[in-house]
């Protein structure tokens, strides 16, 4: 059966991909027990270890945040003309991580891809935390964090409002909308599972806590249809939304008159890159959950295989973007575009550029082979390379392009400071702490959806 499988099947045909694997779960009751037992069993040692490390990183984050907020952005190695540094590079990186979550939960829901169920819940949680991490960077980057509300159209006596013709203002509303809709989507889908947690809990106060979070969900058929319809409506609006958010970030660059930025390919190129890096993070967590919580029966080899194929597809789109960037420089014969392309590939920043190419365009070619896609260790290593590569890509786009503006006397190189390094490393604490708490307290997989798939594919009539 494995030989015939295809990454994308029409609705109703998805079952074939599951048949070959022995599943320890085939009835709804078993699915519920399996998913809830992850939470009710003792905390594994590795979790405590990861939690302590993440808390340490979070502490560093607080130090970094307060220092830059109080002392100012001069701590970063930004200068003129490299006015956008780590604040923007990390904003794009983190919001990109979030995109895979919405893509999996919304777009693949509309496409009726059953395998998405294995990832949708934790990928969506990842989205929320990554967007929260990302949303703070532009505030830091403003320099005057206490005046952040200036970017929002709040009512004031002078009718003085943000300049809506600027993409930077679009960003703030796009990210806020994205965070809000993602939170709603995630929570609506979580309600029935919180009900299941309440029913499985032994202690009264645990029951009460989950019961309150579930808002008294009782699984009435009328409620199920309302939830089902709402989920589809939200998926329908979240799909264009997720495309729009990174497109708007792409426009921040494309609209500006800077060599290396002024390309019409930027919005789609950014969206593909976002989903690419997000899928890498999803795969790392998927492998972690499989081995760390013994969920390999629920997150199967086939699920991982499908996500890896999707990562390969988006990676190839990103590769196409790299080709087009250089092609555009050659084809337009624009002096500054050509100079940038040469500097990028052969100048001071060349190691970063080639690191990016190797990570994002060369290493992922291994995903063509099924043996690689079915090897969890190999996938994690490739995913880590993708994450590094995608971070480098954002670095190459932001400070590297800015280093070579039209005024040649301004040509410079980005000067690192210790705060730049902290701005890269510390946000992982802000991301991992809620992620680790999530995996201990909330169901990692959508129980109700997995039950439905189990029934449909287990042949229990």
């Amino acid at each position, binding site marked *: 059966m494995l030989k015939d499988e295809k990454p994308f099947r029409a609705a109703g045909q998805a079952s074939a991909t599951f048949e070959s694997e022995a599943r320890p779960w085939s009835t*709804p*009751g078993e699915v*519920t027990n399996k998913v809830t037992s992850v939470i009710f069993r003792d905390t594994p040692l590795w979790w405590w270890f990861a939690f302590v490390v993440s808390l340490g990183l979070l502490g560093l984050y607080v130090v970094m945040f307060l220092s830059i907020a109080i002392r100012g952005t001069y701590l970063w190695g930004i200068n003129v003309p490299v006015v956008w540094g780590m604040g923007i590079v990390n904003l794009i990186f983190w919001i990109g991580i979030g995109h895979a979550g919405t893509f999996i939960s919304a777009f693949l829901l509309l496409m009726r891809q059953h395998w998405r169920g294995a990832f949708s819940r934790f990928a969506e949680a990842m989205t929320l935390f990554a967007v929260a991490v990302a949303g703070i960077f532009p505030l830091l980057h403003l320099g005057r964090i206490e005046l952040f509300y200036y970017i929002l*159209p709040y009512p004031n006596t*002078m*009718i003085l*409002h943000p*300049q*809506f*013709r600027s993409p930077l*203002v*679009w960003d703030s*509303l*796009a990210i*806020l*909308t994205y965070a*809000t*809709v993602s939170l*709603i989507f995630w929570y*609506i889908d979580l*309600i*029935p599972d919180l*009900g*299941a947690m*309440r*029913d*499985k809990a032994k202690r009264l106060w645990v029951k009460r806590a989950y019961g*309150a979070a579930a*808002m*008294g969900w*009782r*699984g*009435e*058929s*009328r*409620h*199920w*249809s*309302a*939830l*089902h*319809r*709402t989920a589809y*409506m*939200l998926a329908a*609006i*979240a799909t*264009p*939304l997720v495309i*729009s958010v990174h497109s*708007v970030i792409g*426009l921040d660059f494309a609209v500006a008159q800077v060599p290396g930025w002024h390309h019409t390919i930027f919005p789609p190129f950014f969206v593909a890159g976002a989903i690419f890096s997000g899928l890498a993070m999803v795969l790392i967590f998927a492998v972690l959950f499989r081995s760390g919580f013994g969920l390999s029966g629920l997150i199967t080899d086939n699920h991982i295989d499908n996500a890896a194929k999707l990562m390969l597809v988006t990676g190839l789109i990103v590769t196409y973007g790299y080709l087009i960037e250089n092609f555009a420089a050659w084809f337009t014969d624009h002096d500054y575009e050509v100079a940038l392309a040469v500097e990028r590939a052969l100048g001071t920043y060349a190691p970063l550029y080639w690191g990016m190419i190797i990570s994002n365009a060369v290493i992922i070619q291994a995903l063509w082979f099924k043996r690689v896609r079915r090897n969890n260790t190999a996938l994690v290593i490739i995913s880590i390379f993708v994450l590094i590569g995608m971070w480098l890509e954002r670095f190459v786009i932001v400070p590297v392009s800015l280093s070579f503006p039209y005024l040649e006397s301004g040509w410079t190189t980005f000067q690192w400071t210790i705060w730049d390094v902290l701005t890269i490393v510390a946000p992982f604490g802000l991301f991992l702490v809620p992620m680790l708490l999530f995996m201990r307290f909330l169901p990692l997989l959508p*129980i*109700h*959806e997995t*039950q*439905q798939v189990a*029934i449909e594919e287990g042949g*229990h*009539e």
Partner: protein
Amino acid sequence: MSNNNCMHGVAAEFADAQSLKAAAQQARDAGYDNVDAYTPYYVEGLSEILGERPGPGPYIVLIALFVGAGFFFWFQQFLNTQGYPFVIAGRPLNSWQSFTILTFEVGVLFAGITAALTMFVRTGLPQPYHPIFNAENIDLASSSRYFLCIRTTDPQFHLQKTTDFLTELGPLNVSEVTC
């Protein structure tokens, strides 16, 4: 469990969705109108059997989408042309092309929030207490059991007759639900 002075209905417990659907159909055929079903996951077609009509939710969400989008397009245009006209780089004040993006974003924001609100209005959640929680084994309704409950509000409801009717449908268990 509260006292037995008042009753919510009679509940029957089934082992799988197919038997529940069959039982729901029979209950409807027998003329019962106030019938509720409780399942661990979304069972397709169950709502239709129970005669539950879909609400106007999607239309309200669509309207919210257009209201949000329309409002914000007007808002941006008003601010740039009348509220605080300011020429930057010689661009026209009413450069509507650049307003389209936030028009979309705010439309989506309105629609997303409205979608959640319509669901809460439709379901009546949050509702911490409901009599069905008194039914026997109801804590399995989120994992492995399917419940059908005929409420006392049904004109045809008769404690003995309804209990007998439900017992004939072949459930695992029939229990009286107090409120």
